[in-house]
């Protein structure tokens, strides 16, 4: 069997390719002249028309909500069947501060958990006192929107809202205590690098000793981590021997995060002793 013809053909092919590569700039220039048909682009009823080509665009294009969507459509989209639409709408409603807090409490009782958390988490920090009606809803034990109101209070960087949340740390319902601690942590993070009020820090440290719910303890540790109070690391370390599993892990990590905050140039404050 002779391979010489195959080798000859291959050598010719390779040589032709090398020549074509050398002439590539000319071919590109010719191609650019020919691609003027690409210059005409139009969005027609059937989809995109690129020169003489019509793109067979799927009529089932995905629905999207965006910055261009109006407020009413966004609020309706919070209960859309598509989870992507719901989450995008929730984020935009939060970022654009659509609706006042009291109206949002009602909205938050109807949307799903993920969208609700994203809506609250997307709200920018608010530096004035919260509406008294919001405080009232958060305080009333039989209120349907109580959890939503507590979460919304977490967006306020204000001593009045923080005191209200601190008061809820003594609630009989573990879920309310956990939500209050979580909202305090959120408020503390938003207020960074300003430290948390010493009285509230002391209240949180007191809670650590007596709280039984692991979920609540994790939230309290979270709130203390960002408080920038110097007594916090020692308080957290005292808990480690008597803790187990997730709580112990969280305590150790909290110490590392606190150190990170101090290392990044933020001064930790000397809080008032209880």
């Amino acid at each position, binding site marked *: *069997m002779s*391979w*010489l013809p*195959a*080798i000859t053909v*291959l*050598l010719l*092919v*390779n040589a032709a*390719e*090398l020549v*074509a*590569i050398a002439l*590539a*700039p000319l*071919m*590109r220039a010719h*191609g650019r002249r020919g*691609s003027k048909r*690409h*210059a005409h*682009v*139009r*969005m027609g009823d059937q*989809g*995109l028309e*690129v*020169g003489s*080509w019509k*793109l067979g*665009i*799927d009529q*089932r*294009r*995905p629905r*999207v909500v*965006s*910055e*261009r969507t109006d407020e009413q459509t966004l609020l309706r989209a919070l209960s859309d069947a598509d*989870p*992507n639409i719901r*989450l*995008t709408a929730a*984020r935009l409603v939060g970022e654009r501060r659509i609706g006042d807090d009291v109206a949002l409490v009602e909205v938050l009782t109807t949307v799903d958990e993920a969208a609700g*958390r*994203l809506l609250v*988490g997307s709200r920018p920090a608010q530096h004035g006192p919260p509406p008294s009606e919001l405080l009232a809803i958060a305080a009333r034990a039989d209120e349907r929107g109580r959890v939503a109101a507590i979460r919304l209070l*977490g967006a306020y960087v204000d001593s009045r809202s923080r005191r209200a949340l601190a008061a809820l740390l003594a609630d009989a319902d573990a879920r309310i205590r956990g939500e209050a601690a979580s909202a305090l942590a959120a408020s503390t*993070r938003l207020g*960074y*690098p300003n430290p948390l009020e010493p009285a509230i820090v002391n209240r949180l440290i007191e809670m650590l000793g007596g709280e039984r719910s692991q979920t609540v303890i994790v939230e309290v540790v979270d709130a203390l*981590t*960002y408080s920038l109070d110097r007594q916090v690391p020692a308080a957290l370390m005292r808990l480690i021997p008597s803790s187990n599993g997730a709580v112990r*892990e*969280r305590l150790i*990590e909290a110490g*590392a*995060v606190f150190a*990170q905050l101090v290392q*990044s140039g933020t001064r930790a404050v000397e809080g008032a002793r209880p």
Partner: protein
Amino acid sequence: MTIAATVFALAITAALIAYHGFNALMIVLAWMELRRQQWMAARRLRIAVKDTMALPGMTVIVPAYNESLSIVRTVGSILRTAYPDLQVIVVSDGSTDQTLAVLTRAFALRPSNARPLGSLPTQSIRSVWVSSSDSRLLVVDKRNGGKADALNVGLNLATRPLVLATDADVLFDEHAFFHLALPFVLHAETAATSGMIRLYNGCTVERNRVKRVHMPRTPLEACQVVEYLRAYGLGRLFFNRCGGHLIVSGAFGLFDRQLLLEVGGYQAHAIGEDMELVARLHRHSVERHSVERQRPYRIAFSASAVCYTEAPHALRDFGKQRTRWHHGLLTTLRIHRYMTFNRRYGAIGSLTMPYYLVELYAPVLEALGWIMLPILWLAGLLAGHTVGLFAAVSVLMTMSVSLAAILLDAVYVGRYRGVDRLILVVSALIEPFWYRPCTVYFRLRAFYRYYRTIHLKTAWKSPTRAAHAAR
């Protein structure tokens, strides 16, 4: 020639004709696909789409482990892209170097209230930070759990409908994200898209963007450029044309977030988690199609979406990378072997999986061929000139495929010019003589490790990075 030698010679001949005949078909179809995709690069198209349609939001997840040298540049590159609704999540997977510290300094990080929306199981999160200078950037510090675990953390925190997974050493073209998202805008059943990956070794980088493309000056890096051109400039285009796209690269892959959560995110202990994920997406698509009669998902490749990554400089790192990739291929093909030759999976089952099966065992066949030929010659069973001709045909065929990839790139993209194009061509010509045998060896090593059940640690080790890989 004895009968055995004749049979061997015929087998080699048949293998060469089949394998390289397939390559010729690949070149033709890749050329047709590249011509078709050129319209995506039209500036007027971009303006028309942006003016008339809302682009879906995109979360870019950057898993990072000890990437203090490159992370700021990568994040800067992402934030400078011209995509309207972007969220960037850097996940520091228990980094022990200054990754978090350099990010804090560069982007003025402050504590964030972001909480996971998804419920994929992951290692615990220590802290979440947001940039004071650019609120699109979130940085997560978590316990070490591997790249797949870091990606799942990012997936849980993602708030946009599209999720882009990338690496910590990647730079992006200004409109890369637009081109990657365009198939999602145009077709409702798009599940994932991938783009063109090039190497920035030797390139000029200014303000976190590749300003001028140049060839690297070391042979190892230059041959990798040739290989990437073959893989992306021919292979991906070919499979896209045939509807059998299987690999969405871990460095540049865009996914529907909801779909990713449905299939369970990234597998924590998978080697080659990117390919394994896409195989699972295909399976999910077929099962959903047969149960719910919905149209199967579409996985697209956009040649206009371009990102740049860094190729290994040292042979040792290169070897580890290729061994890991081949190990990932081996593992994925084994796990999803039911898809091979299975018509339910369309082009994936009938074309792509068999192709990668051949790719998997190609180094074995190649090594056998190169070992047997001189043995047969020394034993007097094959004439010396026959052995030489076999070798010449194989080398020339490999060169012709590489030159075809360079030609397509030169005509339709034209990023390498003058001396750089010459270096590219020379690299393609010398590649079969040293680079290819190296890759064969490293890929064979993957078999050895797999069958000796040496568990390649999923905890990643960052390769040696040059502080100034680009000029």
